[in-house]
């Protein structure tokens, strides 16, 4: 399957990925509407700023996926072709996934007790972060293993 990789040298921490991610996962999918929505959408990608390089991070859809085993609500599944499938409806916000994610790529949304994680933009089958990265620091390519 295709996965996201990041060129930390090219990342300027402009956070365009965060913004397009949040907009893409908002009900309206429109910047001006999304920022005024009651519960603004949270980005599932997050850029960590380093000294010389910057490090975006979103769910790795990793083959180990300890979060799937840890989920007490059976909200997570792993599919070798599609990666991690998250049924947000089932999530109760126990944060067990946050506890076990070795990449720190799952984040809690305390407002409605749901975890926030990358779905590789299944709706458009083309992750918005990679598509819109102005420096092409985010790559969406076949899994390296």
């Amino acid at each position, binding site marked *: 399957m295709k996965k996201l990789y990041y060129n930390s040298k090219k990342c300027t921490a402009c956070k365009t990925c965060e913004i397009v991610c949040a907009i893409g996962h908002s009900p309206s999918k429109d910047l001006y509407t999304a920022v005024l929505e009651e519960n603004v959408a949270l980005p599932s990608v997050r850029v960590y700023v380093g000294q010389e390089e910057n490090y975006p991070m979103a769910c790795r859809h990793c083959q180990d996926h300890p979060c799937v085993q840890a989920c007490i*609500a059976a909200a997570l599944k792993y599919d070798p072709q599609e990666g991690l499938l998250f049924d947000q409806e089932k999530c109760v916000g126990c944060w067990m996934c946050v506890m076990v994610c070795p990449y720190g790529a799952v984040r809690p949304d305390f407002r409605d007790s749901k975890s926030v994680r990358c779905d590789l933009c299944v709706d458009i089958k083309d992750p918005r972060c990679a598509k819109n990265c102005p420096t092409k620091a985010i790559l969406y390519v076949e899994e390296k293993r």
Partner: protein
Amino acid sequence: MKRVVIIGNSAAGISCAEALRKKDKEIKITILSREDYTGYNRCLISYYLAGDIKEDKLVYKPKKFYSENDIELLLNQKAGRIDSKKNQVVLEDKTRIDYDYLVLACGASPKLPEIKGIHKKGVFGFRTISDAKGMLELLPITQTACVLGGGLIGLKAAYGLKKRKIEVKVIVKSSQILSQILDKESAEMCKRRLVENGIEIVSGSQAQEIIGEGDCRAVKLDSGKVIAASIVVVGKGVKPNIELAEDSGIKFEEGVLVDDYMRTNIPNIYAAGDIAQSYDPILEKTAVNALWPNAIEQGLIVAASISGENKKYPGSVGMNSVEFFGLPVISFGITKTPDGFEEIALKDIRQDIYRKIVLKNNVIKGAVFVKKIENIGILLKLARLKVDVSGIKDKLLRPDFNFSFTKDLQYDKEEVYI
């Protein structure tokens, strides 16, 4: 045709059965359950009690799962003993079931203190749907509930009952709640949050007697004080259901002892889940870490062993994630720093932010994160793999600690940055 009998229909048993079926379409799989439900999300019963979710959300595996995977599910069947010589499980009704492989996934039960009246109606361990339903039934006639013990399960029940507008008093002998999983500081933070939200913590006492004619009416404490309560929850931890092992030659200590492949001392008998006492890479000895994620993982390991894949289990770790009234807390491993260990901590009492990491010889042995819980999973992984973190020790507590900080550490991880 080989037959696998799994005793226990929860996390370990089901994950084992499901994984086995994926690997082997032929093998016969039978699951025995004492309970009357198909697989359910045991850990969600506190959410159910609190009214945060409806009963349908408790369903982990519906009937369809068993039929689709050709798994024979025998409900309301209690195994009486194991005849390991004949490779048979003997049910309480004397029925014998043959097995080629036996998986003990029969879990654990609440520890009940041996006090007078402990078996009265209205006294609950908090482990099953029936427990939750029993409490819900009593809500209309309940003004006050007593929770005996300050353990995780008891407090989760306390939280659930409080959300149902019941007066809740938690009776704790020691001065610290959650002493099994938290250090003093983080426990204090939790306690404060509970108290602020109306849960009363009665420290320094323990229950002496449950009073009532058949039904529980009050709890008498060793201090002499009597607290009227029509619901009593016993939250003094759980003990593995080792009764089956006791007379069948299966070695056990606190739980059934297993090796790195989840095998007991008897070659075709395995154990997984809350009953199993397995290697703990943090404690560096065997331990019972009775937790849902561990149970799932162990079930998978058993399936791998039975199918001959022989996948080595990296070991179980004690870890917990809880949230009381908006205060999330995650901890794993050793949280109270023993002699000879090192601790680093960051505390912001005003904002309820706390991060503490316990190390030994530059290897992470445990951690507690309060409120800002993100990225703790990275530490858990480093701890499980015993990675020397001396190179990044000064960064571990930084609020922006993240995966990129581990880039110079060599351990089994995916390439993320190129």
